[in-house]
């Protein structure tokens, strides 16, 4: 008994000590550290400069003056914001984008969780065929389906309507996969206990499955939200009247109308702030979503 407990002991304590030593060993020396910071600083400036310019130039009284003098943060004038907020329909665009994103996120998450749960934990006829037809469609580029989808929506009178905008984007095969994969990893006992308790299927889904899926729903939700918030092509095609424009379509249309740069950038800042705030709060989910799509996708 003593022999078996003493032999594993060194191996359980050895790795942390060795790892700490090698951790330092694989770190760069002083020159390497300086070089790393210099390269990272340059890359950060290149990455952040356009954001800085967007904000600063939107606070200029007139369309951008000479570079680099125009990049000093003063004098600050909110004229461009006043223009963009009163004479333009930006609040309407913001509303449209919000409806498009929020409704889609809620609906995609619910539909994908339901389908993912059934694919993972239920037996029913046609399950494999349905699942494989989902899988096969991931290969077909979005642009092949774009035109027939537009024809279909136009035929049923969905052009320039919210439902016409939202409904086709709810068919999200990737979301169904991710949900299925996640729910498959949950132990069956969790569901069986509830079944013996006599919980109805729907109540079990709402009370047990959804809460268990919280982490994956958050990650997936962030990505679906981001995709809808930044989507250009579909809203451009389906929202043909001015009232149905989303932020992306609206700001692109300002560009075509040769609106002064500071006004356009003020509109861009308005469109950027919600995503930036979401990024600051939920950065972990963005990162998780990328690595998930990269490794498992």
């Amino acid at each position, binding site marked *: 008994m003593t022999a078996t407990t003493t032999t594993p002991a060194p191996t359980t304590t050895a790795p942390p000590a060795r790892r700490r030593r090698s951790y330092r060993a694989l770190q760069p020396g002083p020159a390497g550290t300086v070089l790393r910071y210099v390269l990272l600083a340059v890359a950060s400036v290149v990455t952040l400069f356009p954001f800085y310019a967007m904000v600063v130039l939107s606070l200029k009284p007139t369309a951008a003056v000479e570079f680099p003098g125009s990049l000093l943060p003063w004098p600050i004038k909110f004229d461009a914001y006043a223009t963009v907020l009163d004479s333009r329909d930006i609040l309407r665009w913001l509303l449209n984008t919000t409806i498009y994103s929020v409704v889609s996120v809620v609906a995609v998450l619910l539909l994908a969780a339901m389908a993912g749960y059934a694919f993972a934990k239920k037996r029913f006829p046609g399950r494999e065929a349905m699942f494989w037809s989902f899988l096969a469609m991931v*290969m077909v580029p979005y642009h092949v389906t774009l035109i027939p989808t537009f*024809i279909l929506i136009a035929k049923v009178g969905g052009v320039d309507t919210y439902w016409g905008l939202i409904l086709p984007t709810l068919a999200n095969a990737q979301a169904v996969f991710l949900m299925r994969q996640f729910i498959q990893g949950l132990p069956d006992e969790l569901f069986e206990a509830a079944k013996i308790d006599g919980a109805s299927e729907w109540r079990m889904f709402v009370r047990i499955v959804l809460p268990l899926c919280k982490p994956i729903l958050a990650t997936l939700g962030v990505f679906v939200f981001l995709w809808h918030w*930044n989507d250009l092509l579909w809203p451009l095609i389906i929202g043909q009247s001015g009232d149905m424009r989303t932020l992306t379509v609206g700001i692109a249309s300002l560009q075509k109308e040769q609106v002064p740069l500071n006004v356009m950038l003020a509109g861009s800042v308005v469109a950027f702030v919600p995503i930036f705030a979401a990024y600051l709060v939920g950065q972990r989910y963005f990162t998780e979503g990328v690595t998930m799509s990269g490794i498992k996708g």
Partner: protein
Amino acid sequence: MAVPAQLPAPGVRRVIARREARWGLLFVLPAFLLFLAFRFGPAIAGLLLGFMDYTIGGDAEWTGLENARRLADDPVFWQSLRITVVYTLLYVPLTVAASVGLALLVRRAFRGVGFFRSVFFLPVVTSLVLVATIFSWVFSSGGPWSRILSWVGLPADSWLASSTLVLPALALVGVWSHFGYGMLIVLARLQDLPREQEEAALTDGAGPWPRFRWIVLPQLKPVLFFLLVIETTASFQVFDLVYAMTGGGPARASYTLVMALYDQGFKYFDLGYASAIGVALFAMTLVVALIQRLALGRDK
């Protein structure tokens, strides 16, 4: 008495199984119907429409390879194909290189590493329309880019007004907006690598470059391949950036395939012809997927 509770009678089990099947179908059905209507159906229809003459409101007429013949004779199509390929050749290697380079820089924990990782991912979450707006200014004549060019003694004309330099400009903006995505993917793989080999090489006196070239890089191969394929597929479909930044100009010098598809479909409403462009795009994607299959197969 505990046995019947664990194992219900066959009749009861059948009832339970039937109830399960009914609920399973009910749960899948909403997603599946949407999928049939907006993915599966349109995918088939899109492929078929590529062989039809169809304008909205008119009748669809099967014309066989007529659209393919029109594409073959259409200089605008060939030009947009060439532009798309050139854009891809500029964008993909630069993006992958930037992704790997920055992933290596933020690989190990050090003070501020979280900040740098967050900064590099910020452009990925930013709408390409906003990116296009600000970079139109960056590349305008008198903007920062032309200033930098004149400081180093190069011609300071706006790249967006030049038919040869507009694609490099768009590719640079594309790299800026997307390298953070590849960086995170490469980073995830780097952090999974076992450290023993690198430590052994270090003990043997191998410098940073040999360690990267002979130990890290071979292990990154699958993830680099994945990145190469998704970035290539994405750049075949480049639209938002071009639409918002140049509109395909100057003089169609940045008129990509999806720009052509959009104009044919939604400006001229020649939906059959637009679908034929979609089919061409699909074929290009399949070729890339096939190359991926072959290359990965050879590796195994």
